[in-house]
């Protein structure tokens, strides 16, 4: 335990970065997912094709490759957007996870029977009202469990950011481990990831049970 105790501040710094990266990327991925899913469903032929291209491109290339690419692309010598590896990872994880969120939300929207929208429109609700009052509340219930799974996957994927030098949980543990030649810091890292993902899993399971009754 000594190597963990002696470097506790450093490790907690990494833990905080992982938490921020996870929360930030999930929020951005949700925004991207809702937007692109809407375009895919209601955007006509061109919107549907563009949204589909986004999903297939980012879902079918390795996350690590994407992060390596952005790290160089965003560097001052190229686009000059940012050289902070945490910012690069935030963008990369958001865009990557956004592709999965898009598909989840799209399937949620499609799970609501077309006739419900038709009925709502014939009752005099506007298109926006139909979406807000009828379609989205039902779609929301369908997508909560898969979104929970995606958020757990996202937390685990933040570890990939260590490869571009982001000082997150794995990188912090790995540095302490190589400085002290001990395995305990890495064991601590495993426990720290579980301390994020297990509560998420419990929350997802809880919501899943509640929503099953609400149907």
């Amino acid at each position, binding site marked *: 335990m000594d190597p963990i105790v002696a470097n506790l501040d450093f490790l907690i710094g990494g833990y905080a970065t992982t938490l921020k990266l996870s929360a930030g990327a999930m929020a951005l991925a949700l925004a991207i997912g809702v937007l692109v899913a809407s375009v895919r469903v209601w955007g006509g032929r061109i919107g549907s094709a563009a949204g589909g291209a986004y999903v297939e491109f980012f879902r079918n290339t390795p996350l690590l490759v994407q992060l390596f690419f952005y790290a160089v692309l965003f560097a*001052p010598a190229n686009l000059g957007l940012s050289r902070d*590896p945490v910012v690069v990872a935030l963008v990369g994880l958001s865009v990557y996870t956004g592709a999965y969120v898009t598909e989840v939300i799209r399937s949620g929207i499609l799970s609501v029977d077309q006739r419900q929208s038709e009925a709502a429109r014939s009752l005099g609700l506007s298109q926006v009202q139909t979406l807000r009052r009828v379609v989205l509340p039902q779609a929301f219930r369908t997508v909560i469990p898969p979104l929970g799974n995606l958020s757990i996957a996202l937390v685990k994927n933040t570890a990939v950011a260590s490869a571009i*030098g982001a000082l997150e949980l794995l990188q912090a543990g790995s540095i302490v481990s190589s400085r002290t*030649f001990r395995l305990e810091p890495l064991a601590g890292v495993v426990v720290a990831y579980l301390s994020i993902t297990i509560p998420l899993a419990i929350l997802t399971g809880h919501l899943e049970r509640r929503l099953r009754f609400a149907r």
Partner: protein
Amino acid sequence: MRRLIAGLGALALALGACTAGPGASSPAASGAGGGASFAAESTMAKIQQKGKLVCGVKFDVIAFGFKNPTNNEVEGFDADLCREIAQKMGVQPEFVETVSKNRIPFLQEDKVDIVISTMTINEERKKEIDFSHEYYHAGQSILTKSDNTAIQSVDDLNGTTVCTVEGSTSEKNISEQAPDAELLLFPSYSEAAQALVDGRCESVSTDDSILFGLASQFEGTELRGEPFTDEPLGIGIKKGKDDLVQFVNGVLEEMAGNGRWKALYEKHIKPYSGKEAPEPPFKAAG
């Protein structure tokens, strides 16, 4: 499960009986050809039985350990030291890539016999592994872009981002000598230097011996200031192999005596450092 363990035990016994059997213990019978003969249970005899000396070296550090992409040969001072030691044992050298972070684990897990990988001898590492004599004296320095005039010494690194390698003494030295510098860590030096060129950090800081090679590989970069640390490089050996440490030291002393050490310096390091070969940091034999 119990049966499996018993089976493995029997297998280990049988193997032990084989290697300890009459006739099999003679190292000259290993067929590797040449080389000295060693006591049957010595580490060197075991290496001779394998027929190869597995050396952990860097594959991306010019002048020390560099895998030449045109002919797939591992070249450099460290690589030739491995060849020299293997030759003295009468076995073939085999090269395994080690980066700073995995050097000590690779020794402890017996993935390599020795590590010759620009490794600094220090007290913390001595608790984990044994070292040979110091075979090269390096010092930490700074590599930056030629057009960056703001960085002249280690103090100037404060407030900038410094690229270096995980699990290296360089990383530790920077956090001590330039505590306000931001560190961006990579597994290998080539990645760190690429990050410098891309502008993701203002400098790469590590041993001058490594930076010489990087400066020649990456255009528009140069070394700045005098070395600000002492980095005695040593050959790493797993603890409990005192006979191998003595053997390796013997080879180094012989190389100092017959001029091989200086010849290797002139071949690999002089073209980059531009300096004449110094005296070897260890004593010659005799």
